[in-house]
């Protein structure tokens, strides 16, 4: 696939589709969107059932007795129990685990005239039957091959939608079908959430089912549960008005709220996928898809946000299917087949499954973030968008990196805004991480749950990411003006500052080295003066190393060590290295270290100064310390000061040595 081609599509089908036997007179195909499994059933199961799922592990084949046509077939989440619906009155079960009795057992629905519309596995070995008279919630006791009724709800039902990711069952009721009841299933219990009505454009007389299942999607978008309703345009004298998608947000404890409306500006047949919290609306007539992001600001009206497509409508990237090699006269060759996109044989499943029953293909719809990078020129909008996507970290880092390449450099204002956006997420993450750490300290039990919640999928761009992937660009492009380099780094440090994120010292090192390389010592001095660069021992050492080219660095380093208050040893070392003996002694006195400093080190330096007065003073000082500490002027043998005592005697005579006799 060429790069040009890759750039012009923002949606594509997963590279390796799951292939299955297409629908035919002998084969029927079922799809379970909870487990994302395709069942190809031959002769009602007697000639075999092939199950294919998202990964190799879920591939299996099995055989069922032919006891009539199948209506629905679904595995429990752990793949241990297979549920099969063959009639409107009962669901049959087969235990599929090792050493299990393979004989089926079945469960009838309650009531004489009740018809089962469908069933779904709600949680581990729990199942709900949706009938035209209500819900029946059972627990499957596989060992005993029986079901235990947990709860029933009586309610007239037209159709239902099950969302596995949120464990919510949405039921349509009423003669128009527009009264929706959400039920939340949580291990063994069912919670009835407040019902709500979907507005209809025109109510038919006599009333008939107007809200169809195919126009409703139940989806989690940005971790919130929404009901998406596709409202087809009504016929007006001037033609059909464009269709819209209406979003109702579902709450556990309050009424559902109409929050957003997506303007499709088109009419015809539509299907909806959700990819990474983006709403993708496929339009069959134009063979294009529209992308909506409810996180972007839209036009406000009556408490509802109206959205236009986030990007201009584009088709999904063409998909070539390589067919198995067919032996021909010229040898076997791989044939490629151009799949028809937006085909009438397509069935769209929630959230991002595209299935072609005729072709026997099952894909995931995926986003192509790299193409979006080229389509969205507004960097701030782009970063906002990318920060909400999963696995976008490298894409974001690349965007940031490209912003700094000479010739493509964007203004500092944009860079500042982008850094702020990244650091807002980064700081939130740090705060949650701290919160988790605290929670773990307080209560070690249940910390995993908290961690799972805290570690969201949003990309976190931390300081080392910026350092390695973004700022490294300046190493590569030596022609960047140092002013720009420093300005970018200062922007980053400022941005970290506003979010109160402590800056790591490698960033300071980078900024110091850049300033030093360009002889901007006075500017560096000012940065240190205003504490733009935070104090640390490694930085103090770096400053000391700069003394040769910029003498004031010595003073700055000493000040820094002093402020650190844990580096008094280093201060003494530095002073000694400068032969500043008396200041070193005075300093050790002022910080109360005078009893611990090494006499040998001081005397060694004092001897090296070749200044007799200094040597005398230092020697005398330590003699007096000996008197104070041990009542004797003699040096302790462990101090290894004998050579200096000899030196002293040589210079000033043996009589000059203090004696306590």
């Amino acid at each position, binding site marked *: 696939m060429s790069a040009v081609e890759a750039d012009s599509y923002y949606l594509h089908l997963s590279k390796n589709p799951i292939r299955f036997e297409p629908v035919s007179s002998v084969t029927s195909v079922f799809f379970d969107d909870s487990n994302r499994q395709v069942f190809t059933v031959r002769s009602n199961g007697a000639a075999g059932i092939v199950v294919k799922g998202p990964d190799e592990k879920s591939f299996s084949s099995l055989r069922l007795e032919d006891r009539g046509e199948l209506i629905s077939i679904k595995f429990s989440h752990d793949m241990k129990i297979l549920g099969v619906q063959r009639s409107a009155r009962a669901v049959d079960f087969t235990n599929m685990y090792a050493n299990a009795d393979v004989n089926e057992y079945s469960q009838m629905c309650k009531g004489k005239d009740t018809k089962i519309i469908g069933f779904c596995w709600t949680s581990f070995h729990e199942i709900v039957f949706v009938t035209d008279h209500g819900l029946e919630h059972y627990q499957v006791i596989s060992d005993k091959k029986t079901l235990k009724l947990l709860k029933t709800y009586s309610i007239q039902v037209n159709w239902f939608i099950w969302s596995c990711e949120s464990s919510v069952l949405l039921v349509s009721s009423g003669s128009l079908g527009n009264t929706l009841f959400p039920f939340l299933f949580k291990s063994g219990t069912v919670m009835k959430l407040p019902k709500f009505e979907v507005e209809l454009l025109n109510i038919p007389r006599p009333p008939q089912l107007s809200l169809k299942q195919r126009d409703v999607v139940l989806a989690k978008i940005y971790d919130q549960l929404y009901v998406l309703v596709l409202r087809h345009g009504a016929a007006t004298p001037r033609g059909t008005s464009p269709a819209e998608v209406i979003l109702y947000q579902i709450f556990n404890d309050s009424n559902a709220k109409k929050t957003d409306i997506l303007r499709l500006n088109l009419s015809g047949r539509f299907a909806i996928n959700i990819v990474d919290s983006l709403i993708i609306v496929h339009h069959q007539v134009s063979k294009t898809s529209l992308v909506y992001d409810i996180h972007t600001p839209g036009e406000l009206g009556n408490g509802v946000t109206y959205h236009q497509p986030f990007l201009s409508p584009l088709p999904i990237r063409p998909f070539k299917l390589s067919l198995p090699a067919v032996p021909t006269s010229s040898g076997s060759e791989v044939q490629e087949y151009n799949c028809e996109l937006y085909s009438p044989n397509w069935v769209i499943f929630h959230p991002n499954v595209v299935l072609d029953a005729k072709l026997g293909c099952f894909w995931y719809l995926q986003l192509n973030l790299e193409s979006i990078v080229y389509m969205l020129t507004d960097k701030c909008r782009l970063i906002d968008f990318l920060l909400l996507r999963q696995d976008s970290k490298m894409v974001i880092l690349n965007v940031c990196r490209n912003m700094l390449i000479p010739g493509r450099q964007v*203004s*500092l*204002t944009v860079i*500042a805004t982008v850094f702020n956006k990244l650091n807002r997420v980064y700081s939130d993450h740090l705060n949650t991480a701290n919160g988790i750490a605290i929670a773990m300290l307080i209560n070690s039990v249940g910390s995993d749950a908290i961690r799972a919640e805290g570690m969201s999928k949003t990309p976190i761009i931390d300081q080392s990411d910026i350092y390695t992937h973004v700022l490294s660009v300046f190493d590569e492009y030596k022609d960047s003006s140092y*002013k*720009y380099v*420093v*300005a970018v780094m*200062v*922007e980053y*440090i*400022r941005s970290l*500052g*506003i979010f109160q994120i402590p800056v790591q010292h490698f960033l300071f090192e980078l900024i110091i080295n850049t300033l030093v390389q360009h*002889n901007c010592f*006075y*500017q560096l*001095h*000012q940065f240190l*003066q*205003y*504490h*733009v660069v935070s104090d640390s021992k490694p930085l103090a050492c770096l400053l000391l190393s700069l003394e040769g080219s910029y*003498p*004031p660095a*010595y*003073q*700055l380093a*000493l*000040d820094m*060590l*002093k*402020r650190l208050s844990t580096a008094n040893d280093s*201060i003494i070392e530095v002073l000694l290295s400068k032969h*500043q003996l*008396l*200041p070193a002694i*005075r*300093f050790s006195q*002022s910080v109360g270290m005078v009893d611990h400093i090494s006499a040998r080190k001081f005397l060694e330096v004092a001897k090296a100064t070749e200044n007799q007065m200094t040597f005398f003073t230092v020697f005398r000082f330590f003699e007096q310390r000996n008197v104070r500490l041990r009542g004797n002027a003699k040096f302790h043998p462990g101090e290894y000061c004998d050579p200096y005592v000899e030196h002293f005697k040589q210079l000033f005579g043996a009589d000059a040595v203090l004696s306590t006799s």
Partner: protein
Amino acid sequence: MTAKKEVSLINFFIFNAKFGPKEGDEHKKILFYFPHSVPLDTKIKQIGLCEAIITFTATFTDHPCESLHTHKTRQLFFQAEPDFWTVMTLGVPSIEKIVEGQTHTDYREEDIQDHVYRAVLQQTYNLYRLFNGTFQSTLTKCDIESLKQRLDHFFSKYLVTLRLNQVDIMTVFNGVQFLPLDKISYLRLQCFINQMEMIFPQIRYSVVLYNNHLVWSGLEQEDMRVLYYYLTASLLPAITEQDFSTAPLVTSAEGSHFGRFVLGPPDLQNEKNLGRISRVHLAGCEQEMEECFLVVYRALGALMCLLIQGDQQLDFDLFQKIDKFVGPQLSAIASDIAELTSRKNPSSTEMQFKYVYFNRMNFAQKTSIHTSNGLTPSVSSDVLRLIADIHNDLNTVTQVEDGETIVKTSNDSWIVGKKSDQREVYIIIHQKNANLIEINEEVKRLCSTHFNNIFFLD
């Protein structure tokens, strides 16, 4: 009955001995002589005398001659550039007393401190160089006549503004007062400046001051020192006077802000008038002096100096663009800084003692005995002179790395001068009946509370 005479300027001249080596050509050596009214013959004699002294003393020492003391005058020599000498002659202050009907003049020689007035001489030259470049560069580029013109143009005006009786230790330090500012506000200003310099690449350097305090300088230290002196001693006092008289706040079409040009177009509606824009010569760290235009912009308490590339043609459009970009942001930053500085409780930070601080490493100076415009010190001139003496003592006479001098004056004031590495502090304590030990303890306490974040040895 007594009559006091303050220090006075008798003459000021610049000469180059190489310019008229032959007899009869002596007048060629004179580049500038103040006062003008002096007969040429006297000028030649004066210069000849100076030259003789300089040459004579040079036979004994490598260190050039610095000053000549006489009973009634003091002459200071300063070799600004090789072979270019600037000389200033001062009248020694005196007191006239009438004792038994006889007039008796008492000359107070010790009131003139050589190193203070040498600093004046140095500062005078630095300021000239900022606006005109070096003497030699003018000679190289033009000719001797234009050098003479420039010297005349600059010094004739400048010398009359010299306040010779108001120079003290601060002149010697010739430092810069920095504005204490928190990191976030500082970074915000920094980022704003970076953005500005990216948008206007013509701007080579920028400098920001707030209420006479330096906040940011893109210039080299030495250049900044001279520019700071010009701004605080000359430009700012002049515009503050203006402010209180006329000048309304500027409001532009895009919304009001408080910015306007101090050096630059006075009226942004009138494109005919680019206003007063000086050329400045920056020494930088390179050999060649760099020429820039000095544009000064002001918003509330903030003053921004923009040094624009000297080879650019300045057009009115640029000023309008700068005003549009800088005006609103600088106004906002200035009002934030104003809020921050007012929030710091002034009464609690007001120190109970008087001090002067100087750090040679970054020329940072602080003083509690001078008002911000550096004019009226709050201690007697005796004390100031004593400080200057201690400074001289600590730095030139004994040349110690660290040291301390404690002096008690006749009127019960204690002056403590301390030097640690490159920093100096002078503390004045008024305490009756205190002894040396008490003063020493007091200074230790003050240092540990006020200098706790720097390495300042007790």
